[in-house]
């Protein structure tokens, strides 16, 4: 059998040993599926003005309108079906969270590995910046950026990248420091490979395990932070209705007892974040019990 395939099967078996994490993983896959195919799986298009009727606004869960449309989770203030709004919202939330996570991973591991590789003043400078940034709570860093530069999709993503890159840089550096002293790096040096090639083709692949663990937990954090910022009106604009914005929209109807408009998007957010966290927790235990 192909050794890579065997390794993968072993990994799957190992992962399945924790039933909670396995269930969380399948829930996350389902959420991912719903988010990617939101236009196909949603009962209605919540942002198509032809199908949304203001007559249906604030219908409670399990209700039906006059033309026989069924609203499992009710409708919001503009008459949109909550199920569809949540599916589309998951798409935005996951999209922003994953995208910012990938960029932060790339930037953070670049600085982390190069810091470990070159050492000296360069390393001290990078790690000092990382330390200083990590001494500020993440919400404060995002708040400073968004308050000074205004809201928007790109700005929210930039803020989330800036919040996260330091965690990746620290993780990448500490695992690269271990790898650098191994023989294969010496061998690569003897072959006179370029620094870039050694750093990113030889060292980086061996640092991936801890980076993936940090990546899962950080993505959950980013999704939650984006929701918070959008709820506060600092994050995404109204044209990109993420789960945070949906919860914020429902907040004004809270006092009249229309709980479903902000509760259900929140439940979706909670399930998403918790499932990613549970998978991340288990991956952490599997890869490196000493991490954190």
């Amino acid at each position, binding site marked *: 059998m192909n050794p890579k395939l065997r390794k993968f099967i072993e990994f799957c078996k190992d992962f399945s040993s924790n039933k909670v994490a396995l269930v969380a993983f399948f829930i996350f896959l389902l959420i991912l599926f719903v988010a990617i195919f939101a236009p196909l799986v949603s009962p209605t298009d919540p942002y198509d003005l032809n199908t949304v009727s203001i007559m249906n606004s604030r219908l409670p869960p399990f209700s039906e309108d006059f033309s026989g449309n069924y609203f499992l989770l009710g409708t919001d203030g503009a008459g949109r079906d909550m199920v569809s709004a949540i599916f589309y919202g998951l798409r935005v939330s996951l999209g922003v969270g994953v995208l910012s996570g990938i960029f932060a991973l790339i930037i953070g591991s670049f600085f982390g590995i190069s810091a470990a590789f070159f050492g000296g003043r360069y390393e001290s400078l990078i790690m000092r910046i990382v330390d200083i940034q990590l001494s500020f709570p993440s919400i404060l860093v995002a708040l*400073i950026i968004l308050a000074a530069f205004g809201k928007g999709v790109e700005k929210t993503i930039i803020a989330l990248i800036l919040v996260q890159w330091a965690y990746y840089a620290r993780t990448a550096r500490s695992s690269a420091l271990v790898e650098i002293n191994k023989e294969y790096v010496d061998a690569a040096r003897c072959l006179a490979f370029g620094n870039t090639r050694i750093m990113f083709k030889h060292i980086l692949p061996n640092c991936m395990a801890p980076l993936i663990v940090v990546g899962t937990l950080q993505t959950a954090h980013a999704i939650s932070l984006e929701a*918070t910022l959008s709820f506060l009106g600092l994050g995404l604009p109204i044209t990109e209705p993420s789960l945070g914005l949906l919860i914020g929209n429902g907040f004004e109807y809270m006092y009249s007892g229309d709980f479903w408009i902000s509760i259900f998007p929140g439940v979706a957010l909670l399930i998403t*974040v918790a499932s990613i966290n549970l998978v991340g927790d288990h991956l952490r235990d599997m890869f490196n019990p000493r991490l954190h």
Partner: protein
Amino acid sequence: MLWFLLLKNSKMTAFICTRFAQSILVLFIMSLLVFGGVNLVGDPVEMLINPEADQAEVERVIRELGLDRPVTEQYWYFLVNAFKGDLGSSFIFGEPALKLIIQRMPATLELALFSLFISLIIAIPLGIYAGYNPDSKASKVIMAGSILGFSMPTFWVGIIFIMIFAVQLGWLPSTGRGEIGTFMGINSSLFTLNGLSHVFLPALNLALFKISSVIRLTRAGTREIILQDYITFARSKGISEKRVVLIHVLKNILIPIVTVVGLEFGSLIAFSTVTETVFAWPGMGKLIIDSIYNLDRPVIVAYLMIIVTFFVFLNLIVDIIYTFLDPRVRIKGDHQ
């Protein structure tokens, strides 16, 4: 011996000086960032001048604010004025931004302190229980709850609190600060019943993520302490288990927990922005969010500069305290 102490102290002094210089540098970079954000991205005239002003007024203010001068000169004036404590006046309230923020500071501090108190009161007993009986069902429920507490978005939990306790049950008020009482010269809403009823829900909401982390800390600490020799010794003397836990374990666990939680007090202030917005609590956090809505730029700039200064010096103090408490911190180049 004396020589060694001197060397140690001079190292310590050098360390403190470096950290202080770094703090000043961070403040300087932050002022560049905030100034750049307000003045270079977007139109400063539109942002800094009241939109209701007429043409003559606009030109007068442009000259007064020095917006017709080079950017470097403008930045210099911004710094000089900031040092004098002049961070501009609010468009909405017409009062100095600094004064507005200082007025709202007690409400935020009161909320943060009370939620710190709540989190310790709830989390320490639960954490000790979970550490003392790690295999019991209740401990597993407590630990699962703490993972859930990490995953739950604070603002959404706040909304649920309002729905359950204010809207459905009608037990507690959900918005604003209550009556303010005076005790020993301090004005606070914690000294009146009405005030306490107002502060309870927001403080509990703000305490949630702290509760989760303190439970984990306490549990880990308890599990470690319970294996120590002095606990075995206390038990062998025939001291009751109740006394062992309440006196010996609690006493030893309290010091590290109070240190960590106290040092993390800043994060409560940062997160109070969210809680204050949900519960319409009239603190600094709500002021900044309102100012962002209203494009009240002087207040935004002032708030950001104040909060950054606060954090930079808080971190400086934490660093210095840590060097006194833990000599390992002083080892150069240790970033682990």
